[in-house]
């Protein structure tokens, strides 16, 4: 074992305690203590994927809010749909929604193109958000801010 992992211990990379959000979202207070999120890319320009990856960085430290990223929609409470669907991705998106255990919510995160698909249980829409906006919206869904 190298000594350098201890370097992480003496540094506090986490930033804010609170991420206020102006987004209008439907709150689901059943997930107040913990929420598991699955993200599905349906055809965004990879920018939103990068933002989700950035959201998982040390600055935001989402685990302290009980926000976890699941590896399967079956483990998830909230589905984040990134982008507007390409023709081929509509079926996989619908299949994914079908796999979500109830109750669940869908947070639509868009870029420039509007998503014109009818999805069930949509709890909010974000447009070109930064990671802090996404985090704020999630916290609002959880009723934590």
């Amino acid at each position, binding site marked *: 074992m190298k000594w350098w992992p201890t370097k992480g211990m003496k540094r506090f990379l986490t930033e804010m305690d609170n991420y206020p959000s102006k987004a209008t979202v439907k709150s689901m207070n059943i997930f107040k203590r913990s929420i598991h999120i699955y993200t*599905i890319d349906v055809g965004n320009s990879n920018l939103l994927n990068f933002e989700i990856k950035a959201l998982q960085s040390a600055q935001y430290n989402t685990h302290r809010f009980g926000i976890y990223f699941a590896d*399967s*929609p*079956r483990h998830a409470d909230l589905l984040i749909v990134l982008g507007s669907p390409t023709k081929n991705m509509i*079926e*996989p*998106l619908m*299949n*994914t929604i*079908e*796999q979500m255990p*109830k109750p669940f919510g869908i947070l639509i995160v868009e870029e420039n193109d509007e998503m014109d698909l009818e999805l069930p249980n949509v709890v909010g829409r974000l447009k070109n958000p930064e990671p802090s906006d996404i985090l704020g919206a999630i916290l609002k869904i959880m009723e934590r801010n």
Partner: protein
Amino acid sequence: MCFAYTALILYFFGVVFSFKRWISYTLASIGAAFALVGGIVGTFYPFTLGNMELLPKIYMSLGVNHTSGIFMTIAAISWIAISIYSIDYGKFYSKDMGLWLNLSFLGMMIILMAGDGLTFITGWEIMTVSSYLLILKHKGAFKEAFEFLAFGELSTVSLIIAFASLFLKNGNFSFTQNSGTVIFLIMSTFAFAVKMGIFPFHTWLIGAHAKAPSNVSALLSAPLTLMGVYGIFMALSIMPNLHLYNFQWWGILAIIFGAMSAFWGALHAVATKQLKTLPAYSTIENNGMILAAIGISVMASADPNLAIMSEFALITAIMLAISHTFSKSLLFLSVGHVKEALNEDNIDDLRGAWSAVGKIPALGILISGLSFSAFPPLAGFVGEWMLLESFFQSYKFSDIITRLVATFAGIFVALAIGMAAFSMVKLAGYTALGYDHGKKAKRMPSTLMKVSELFLAILVFGFGIFATFVLRYFGYSQFTSGLFGVPSPFLMISSVPIFGVVSPMFFAIVTSVLFLFPLAFYLTKNKVRRVNSWNGGLPIEEGEYFTAQAYSSIIEIVFKKIYITKEKRSADEAHIEFVDVISVFYDALKGTILKIENVLSNTLMNGNINAYVAYIFAVLVLIFILR
């Protein structure tokens, strides 16, 4: 006594009535039922059926004693299941199958009741030859049947040598206390080990079990190899007192070969993709474990202080034999049912028996698979727990070499048990529980097949849960006890004073109580949403199922040196090749012998009349000179 007679007579009638299939098989099953009663009676009240004097001092005698009674009980249960199963299953094969099936039961009866070498050999030959003919019932099984016969005759020949040694010492062939000789022990053990399929004499077993009709596979795998186990028990029982003479070398050899074949069998069971080859390798593994248990017993019996351990190892062998006989009969019968219904050979092609063929055969595969994976509280768990407990106690041996051998053998056996679970998950997971191919199963009368599968499945459960009572029944009540709120005799103990304990019954009770809660939850929740299995957003297609090959590839690649794994890849096809090294050796041996034979026949028997005249002349000259 009369039961045993009736059984023999019924088998005889079964042979006679073989022109009518169902009569023949029914007679066989009734005969087996009588044999069961005979066995149970004989366990407690040994009896003889009579002696027949062939020559002065040379008798043929039949009788049942405690040991053979136990084995007859075990074997008879398997015979009952096999013959009931055959009433339905036999319809796919020719009429003389009933004849040979009855005859092989008869042969085994004779073996179990034999009181002397001649009778034993008679039974042995009847069993071997009729089994050979049974294997031949499957089309294209000639090579495998012949290999079976060759190894069968090898064991017969060594048995003849063993009994000859018996005759030289005692002047007769009878199995009486202290009549054994070392040569007898060596040769008979060899003969029985070949029959049990002990490494490295197991190759006959694979081909024969895989190719034979499934009821015959069950017969070959369960009762027939059980005869080998019985033979070893019998041979040891007539040896002079084990603790007076030093037979530790036998014990060490038995442990080494037992552990080796357990490991080898488990290793190849993991890799194989053929539905019936997998249980065949599992047979090798189980028989190896039985032999290892006997080996521990013999080693312990050399030390008077370890009498309890010796007895425990002995009852371990019997429990392993019970679990193997029941579970393996069940496995082969269920697998045969599925195979016949879907008409496929590969594990991959037989997925989803639960929905495609039926719940009972799938349950049979599942329960026997779990039993072989040592899943509590099934019979296999009890046997394998006892075996590991026997190995754990090897620290009690005073001799350092013995301890080391037992320790390392224990490691191999533990590995084998683990890998057996791996292979059984493959078998049961794919065949019984896997996704349905959507293939139509062949419609066939299968009520009695299901009856016999259910019968065995219940026994595998029962002999696990009530293992303590089985021990008491066989007269080993010192290994049952009560402790920590478990009332006597629901607790099994592995030594006195207590070394290790387990209570399959209480395990079953606790698990079923714990199971009640989710069950109640499931039943009360009336709205259950069912969705397709998650596969990355698209429905799973036929070509996307994880194959049985892929399940075990990692083992084949890691143990490259043992399997001699080769990854073959051409322009449009790829596969993994691996071999059982021992069968490669036998193939090479066979090839060499054929070549020598060819050369000899070309040079000596060349069809030239002059050469033959010259041979005759040479012989004449030789005779004159010798005179």
